[in-house]
């Protein structure tokens, strides 16, 4: 099996029905995407495939066509993505476990809608956070949108 992840091509063996999440975590040792539910219900495992957010815990590794981006692939030349910077500025994470998925979902949102409203954020950000960081996530997404606008 061959996959391009964060710009690097990996060749490995895995059962065809293995979810992408476990191929990433257990075979390729890419630990950013987290296991939370195994049924696409929480979003902790969110990665991008060709820029689209995907819940990797239920996405068969053999079905992946295109480039996979995990949170490890977000920084460019060591510089954090605007969403990551905004997350730090707003001190979003508490336990932090869901935040890889939240950040990937936010990146995907801002790729589609550059200046999202509260409703856009409510609709797109369906990932679960048990620490209740939602108000800070919302504020950070708006800040990231502003940062990206300046750089555009």
């Amino acid at each position, binding site marked *: 099996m061959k996959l391009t992840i964060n710009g690097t091509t990996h060749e490995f063996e895995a*059962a065809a029905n*293995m*979810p992408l999440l*476990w191929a990433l*975590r*257990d*075979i390729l*040792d890419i*630990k*950013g*995407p*987290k*296991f*939370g*539910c*195994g*049924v696409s*219900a*929480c979003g*902790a495992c969110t990665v991008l495939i060709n820029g689209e957010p995907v819940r990797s815990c239920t996405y068969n590794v053999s079905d992946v066509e295109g480039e996979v981006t*995990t*949170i*490890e692939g*977000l*920084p460019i030349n060591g510089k*954090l993505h605007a969403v*990551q910077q905004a*997350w*730090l500025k707003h*001190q*979003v*994470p*508490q*336990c*932090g*476990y*869901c*935040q*890889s998925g939240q*950040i990937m979902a936010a990146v995907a949102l801002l790729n589609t809608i550059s200046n999202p409203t509260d409703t856009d*954020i*409510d*609709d797109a*950000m*369906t*990932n*679960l*956070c*048990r*620490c*209740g*960081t*939602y*108000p*800070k*996530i*919302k504020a950070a997404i708006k800040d990231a949108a502003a940062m990206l606008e300046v750089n555009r």
Partner: protein
Amino acid sequence: MSRLGTITRRSFMGLGVAATGGLAVGYYFYTKPFPNPLIAMAAEGDAVFNPYVKIAADNTITIIAPRAEMGQGVHTTLAALVAEELDVSLDQVNVEHGLPGKAYYNEAMMVEGGPFPFFDEGFMAEATRGSMKVVSKFLALQMTGGSSATIDAFVKMREAGCAARLVLVAAAAEHWGVDAGTLRTSGGVITNHVNNETLTYGEISEAAAQLEPPSKLPLRPRSEWKTLGKSQPRVEGLDKVTGGRIFGIDVQLPDMLYGTVKISPRFGVGAVSVDKNAALKVAGVLDIIDIESTTGSGFGIIAENTWAAFQGADALEVEWATPDYPANTDGMKSMLDIAMATNSDFTLGKVGNVEKEFNNTDSENFFGAVYDAPYLAHTTMEPMNATAHFKDGKLEMWIGTQGPGLAQSTCAALLGIKTEDVTVNTTRMGGGFGRRGEVDVPLYAAAMAAKTGGRPIKVTWSREEDMRHDTYRPIATAQFRASLTDDGDITGLDVDIASPSILTSLLGRTFPSIPAGGTEKIVLEGAFDQPSTIPNRRYQAHIVDLPVPIGFWRSVGNSFNGFFQESFIDEVAHVSGKDPLEFRLSMMNDEEHRPAREVLKKVAKMANWGGSLPAGKGQGIAHALSFGTWVAQVVQVDVTDDVVKIEKVWCAADLGLVLDPDNVKAQMMSGIVYGLSQALGQEITFSDHEVEQYNFYDFDAMRMHQCPEIVVELLENSHRMGGAGEPGTPPSTPALANAIYASTGKRIRSMPLSHAIDFA
């Protein structure tokens, strides 16, 4: 200076030690020294000053924050205590949890364990607090819980920083041959203004660690704090926005196997029969072992990867035995009703004579109501997991645990090895909420590690296994009866609460040899211990014997009693035609109740309480004192077409002393969301003796689109420092129920509220 302060100050006498020198001088509490766990962790050249501070020659400064970082920011705040007195900034230091050690026992967690309200400073209450300190020293449990970490660390970790700085300065003074008083410290550098030379802490650390700190450790007054009292970025913040490998589930070891567990979904019984054939045929499944422990019986699936292990567990065909507890939730509720109808097990908070008052009250001047709350799961975002490596008679574990010492001792007992032959590496945790102090997770991993031929194994529970094998927040029900004056003021309050005992459940699975029983204030906490000047009161506990495992769920007994009591007070206010805020204020008149009055008045002002609202909107108010922190909240809802939208929450909290304002506000916000989540539909129910819920699709929590705007303000009127992690939770649910009543006239007395009304 408090007794604690005196003791810990004395304890620092003669604690200087350099790991390279091999001189182990203990850290003394009372008279018996505990060994310094940091010595075992120190690398060649590390100078160890005390259990909390080591400094390498290259000026790498490491602070040990020996409490579970599960999102509450404890590593940042505890490190700030040391950094403040060590005169370094937080971005200069490494913060580690460290290895387990009795030196890190939590004294504060047990101090409020006695049957007294937080504000009671009478002889009995204080004497009990004193003896709890001795008991906690004797048990020497290194636990994170009870919102106690910062309270416990406040003096001793500042003293650790101060003691290290004083010997560093003394060593530098000796080096330069000057008086120590002429030297200045800043940012880990000592400056000699006479010759304009400087020394880093690292350059002088080996010599400094040989010196004894003075017996008097002059801690900085608050007015001189540089770090404490100010909001700090989290020390692990960067890891948490870059997918850092910091959680137990991220552990990766050479030659590591993977596994999962399938434990009996019927509590207290095991398998009648098992067919392993199909499971062993799953590609990647290597072995299936039997697990027998005090926490459960079942099977461990050993595999080449986690996915294979999960599939193996699904394919494992087991017939489980039938336990003798009721098969379904209705049967369990009947047991609560029976307990409620029989004599009480104990009474707390008795004031005046409620029976006499009731006998003297006209029959039309009574008001009563019955409330109930279900079992709840913790559902931490990171499912339960542990990695274990058993080789040559020694066990090493990597686990996110709130009780590393318990994990160490119970796993040692399971494998029949010495406690010192178990090493526990405590990782950061994807949520804890009380779940991660339990020993089931390390026990199963240790049992599986003994069957791998010396290879390490990471054991990850599926979400379904996690949901169905929790130590649940207990089911509870309460009867409130009040006698009223003709004006509607409460003259007598009689409260009966029925619930299973958390301590009986906990001791049974953790220390089976210790008998349980007696007064357990948890059943009544959040009710009997609240600020009240109602002249006649009585709170009776009815303990129910149910073997469903129960445990500490964020705010524990306060999580249901806060809902019960603050709903009832609100009901009486409306029955009496009184404003719910004014009614509360009229019943907390003692001087020591002042923080409660102030947070209520504050939150009312923040929310513009009593102001006019558009049709369909309503506000509810509630107050709860828990873990030493006074919290008042107003929830505002909008009810349109019978659907409730929680619009806004205002929160005023008084912890007495705030060390990191933004973090405390974040904890209040978190506690509110955690509390409101249960109202939206959380419940653990039973059929066929098994939990009926499996995953987030049938036990969800609040999501982004349901989350209100939350505003938090902090006050400092309280006489002692309170906790941060839990106190935001208890007032949230009654404030919501009270807001729904204000908007709709519908009183909901049963959790989750979603049974009676729809939420957006």
